[in-house]
């Protein structure tokens, strides 16, 4: 038996005065940072409100925080012109989620396939590059013509926005797998399929996950732009209608709602990621 195998890492002994002082310093710093954050927010909103009320900026064009708050309140309590606020948020989320799921699935599958099979990469590589170089958001009007005013056209624009970042990350992830790990797996007896599923995909997940964060934002953009161009439901339509009635507070209010939705989705994704990456060492400074 080896000495190390008998001893498990011990918890630190009872805290001394210095450790307590250090803990206090850390707590104080956290409080300070959070306090300053609030202060910045209050200052920005306060200045905006003040400038708008005193006429330094035109409240009709630039609106002001209190009006935006009122607008959100009205929408929440009395609903919007095209139905309840919840229904609008749900419509946008539904399109974004569907588009995201389809885009991510396609991106991951094709990325891994092209990353693993050299032949496919050589054949399709140039086409992928060309498609990626196109400003894909201009496809939204075309999708509107193809798929109509319903959710399908928004899902399609979300898919084309989501697909490429996910695809490139999955492709890169599959390409950059540690060659030692692959060699080791092959020596241990893994078939090509086993290498793909048990070595390449697990090591590519870190790459894929970074793209998932970004791409959910893209899918929201796809859905919103689609709605903005033409829809019967959704936050994008709220923006378009507010703009049409010269209601700048409405545009801002829709933006605020959207930000909240995006942050909530991001938080959910981080939660899933933490569970999935238990095997990873915690990197200092990795948490934001």
């Amino acid at each position, binding site marked *: 038996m080896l000495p190390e195998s*008998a001893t498990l890492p011990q918890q630190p002994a009872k805290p001394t005065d210095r450790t307590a002082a250090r803990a206090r310093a850390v707590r104080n710093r956290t409080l300070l940072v959070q306090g300053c954050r609030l202060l910045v927010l209050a200052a920005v909103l306060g200045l905006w409100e003040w400038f708008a009320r005193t006429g330094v900026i035109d409240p009709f064009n630039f609106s002001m925080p209190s009006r935006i708050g009122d607008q959100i309140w009205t929408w929440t309590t009395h609903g919007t012109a095209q139905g309840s606020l919840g229904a609008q948020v749900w419509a946008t989320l539904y399109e974004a989620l569907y588009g995201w799921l389809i885009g991510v699935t396609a991106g991951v599958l094709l990325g891994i396939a092209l990353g693993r099979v050299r032949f496919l990469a050589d054949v399709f590589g140039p086409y992928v590059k060309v498609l990626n170089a196109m400003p894909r958001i201009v496809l939204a009007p075309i999708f509107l013509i193809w798929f109509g005013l319903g959710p399908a056209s928004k899902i399609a624009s979300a898919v084309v926005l989501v697909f490429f970042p996910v695809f490139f990350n999955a492709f890169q992830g599959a390409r950059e797998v540690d060659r030692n790990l692959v*060699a080791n797996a092959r020596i*241990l007896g893994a078939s090509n399929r086993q290498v793909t599923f048990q070595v390449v995909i697990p090591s590519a997940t870190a790459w894929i996950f970074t793209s998932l964060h970004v791409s959910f934002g893209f899918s929201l953009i796809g859905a919103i732009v689609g709605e903005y161009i033409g829809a019967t439901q959704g936050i994008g339509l709220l923006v378009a209608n507010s703009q049409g009635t010269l209601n700048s507070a409405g545009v801002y209010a829709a933006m605020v709602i959207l930000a909240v939705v995006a942050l909530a989705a991001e938080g959910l994704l981080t939660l899933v990621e933490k569970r999935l990456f238990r095997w990873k060492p915690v990197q200092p400074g990795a948490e934001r």
Partner: protein
Amino acid sequence: MTHDTSPAIELRGAGKAFRTPSGALHTAVRELDLTVGRGEFVAVVGPTGCGKSTTLTLVSGLEEPTEGEVLVGGEPVRGIGTDVGFVFQQDAVFPWRTVLSNVMAGPRFRGAAKAEARERARDWLARVGLSAFEDRYPHQLSGGQRKRVALAATFVNDPSILLMDEPFSALDVQTRALMSDQLLDLWAGTGSSVVFVTHDLEESIALADKVVVMTAGPATVKQVFTIDLPRPRKVEEVRLEPRFIEIYREIWSSLGEEVRITRERGTGNAA
């Protein structure tokens, strides 16, 4: 020795040349002639960066020779053999698998049932003294512990050919001695043939039955020395024996020259 008389490993005039990214042809090893008997422990020493590792990749089937022949068990190597185990220089454990799952990987890849694989893995984890760590992830272990996981993961497949590429070079001196002893213990029970690549002459003499000295790159076999130190050995003790020092001096007179040549070529291509 078994009744089958063919040696475990045989290299006949084997050579390997790579294309470098700039398109030039780089010869890693040339005209390699080497025989490893069954159950024999052969250490390969040579200057750093001379192509020792390439020899192993040829035997393992990870790479094919561009010249000559490589035979394992009397048969030419075609692809990765099922009776080969390989311990890499760098960490090659799967970071997303627990220790137990890492050791189970080999049998599972080869189609063993989960319960059977688990049983065999636990047995080998016990032998390397890591039973208490089976639920850990590799990043929670020390370098020496990770190396032991790699050893267990290799031995669990019962390889008759064991290839080791400077496996302990990243470890500190004490851990290295400990691991060397452990390797000898593990190996003693298996009867497998070992090719152990290292640039540490002491390590090679302490472990091996036969020490092969390679020339400066492109490498080929320069000289083969038989080590007649009795087994079982303890690496830290055997080092102090007069016979050990005698052998060391004898081999160094051969190896030292190659090391000098490599150094004189400059540090640029052999770091």
